[in-house]
C-alpha cells in the first residue's frame, strides 16, 4: 500500500517548479503615459520563442542573437494587450534588462501620450501556451493610490477594470 502511495505521488512528479510572471502597469501623470514593467523567466521565454524560432536566442547574455529583441517584441505583442476605454492601444517596446539574479528579464513597455483611461482591459497570455500552470500577475497602479491586482491563468486570460 505504501508502495502504491509512492507511485501515485511519483506520477505527479515532485518538481516544485513554478511558472509565474509579474507586471506592473502604471499611469504616469507627469508624462501622460502608461508604463509597464514586466518580469519573465528567461528559460520559460526561450522555451516559448523556440516554438516559432527554433534557434536558441541566448536572451540577455553576451551571445544574444541580433534578432532576439524583435522576436521578443513580436511575442509580447501577441500575448500582452491593453485596451483603454474600449480602444486597443499598441505599446512601444522601450527596452529590456536582465533581472538581478540573471534568471529573468525585465521588459519595459509604454503607451505614450494618453489620458488616464476610465476603463482598462488587460489581456496577458504570455507563456500559457507552454505551461498549463502559468500564472501572470498584473498589478495596476493609477493616480490617487488606486491599485488593483489580477491573477491571470489559462482559465482566466483577461480582466476588465473600471477606474
Amino acid at each position, binding site marked *: *500500500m*505504501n*508502495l502504491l*502511495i*509512492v507511485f501515485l*505521488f*511519483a506520477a*505527479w*512528479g*515532485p*518538481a*516544485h*517548479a*513554478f511558472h*509565474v510572471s*509579474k507586471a*506592473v502597469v*502604471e499611469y504616469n501623470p507627469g508624462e501622460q503615459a502608461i508604463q509597464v*514593467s514586466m*518580469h519573465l*523567466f528567461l528559460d520559460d521565454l526561450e522555451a516559448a520563442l523556440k516554438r516559432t524560432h527554433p534557434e536558441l536566442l541566448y536572451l540577455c547574455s553576451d551571445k544574444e542573437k541580433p534578432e532576439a529583441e524583435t522576436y521578443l517584441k513580436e511575442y509580447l505583442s501577441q500575448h500582452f494587450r491593453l485596451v483603454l476605454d474600449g480602444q486597443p492601444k499598441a505599446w512601444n517596446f522601450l527596452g529590456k534588462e536582465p533581472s538581478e539574479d540573471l534568471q*529573468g528579464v525585465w521588459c519595459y513597455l509604454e503607451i505614450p501620450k494618453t489620458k488616464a483611461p476610465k476603463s482598462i482591459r488587460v489581456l496577458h497570455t504570455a507563456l500559457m501556451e507552454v505551461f498549463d*500552470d502559468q*500564472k501572470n*500577475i498584473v*498589478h495596476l*497602479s493609477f493616480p490617487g493610490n488606486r*491599485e*488593483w*491586482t*489580477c*491573477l491571470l491563468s489559462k482559465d482566466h486570460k483577461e*480582466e476588465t*477594470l473600471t477606474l
Partner: protein
Amino acid sequence: MQSLFQTYLTLGFEHIADLKGYDHILFIIALCAIYKLSEWRKVVILATAFTLGHSATLALAALDIIPINAEWIEFLIPVTILATALYNVVVHRFSREMDEGTFDRRMNLNYFFAAGFGLIHGMGFSNFFRAMVMPGEHAQLVKQLFAFNIGVEVGQLLIIACVLAASYIAFNLGKIKQREWNLFISGGAAANALVIALERWPG
C-alpha cells in the same frame, strides 16, 4: 479584479496546497500522523511552531537579509519529512505509552522539529515568493508577505483538518489502531520523501 492582498493570499494558499509540489503537504501529513482528532490542540501548537519557523525565514529571505541556496533547500525539504516520519516511528520509546496507543509526549520534541523544519520550508517558500513579489513601492513588500503567509496558513489548516478527519475515520470506522495508522502514514511519507530527496540530490 482583486486587491493585492487577496491575490497574494491566493498565491500563498495555492502554493502550499499545490498537488504538483506536494512536499509541504507531505510534511504536514507526517507531522500529524501521531495525533488524533481529540488532540487537535496539540496539532494547533505544532502548526503554530511550524508557522513561526517558516514565517521567519520567508521574511528574512524575501527582504534579502539571508541568502538562499535553492538547490540545497529543495533537497533539505524532503529530508525534514524523512526525519519527521522516522521520529514518529520511534516516538513511543521516548514517551510513556498511555492507553490505546496515546503517548504522553513529555519531551514534545515534535514542536522543535516543527519550528526548526519550518525554517527550511520558509526558505523554500521564499524561492517562490521572490519570483512573484511585485517590485517598487507601489506594492508594499510587507503587505504581500503578510497576505502570502495568511494564505499558507489557511492551506496548512485545511491539510491538517483533512489528515485528522481521515485518521478519525480510520480509527472509528476502520477500527485501525493508532500505532498501525502512524506506521502506515509515516512509512508512506518516509518512502516518498526518500524518493524526492534522491531526485533532488545536490550537485
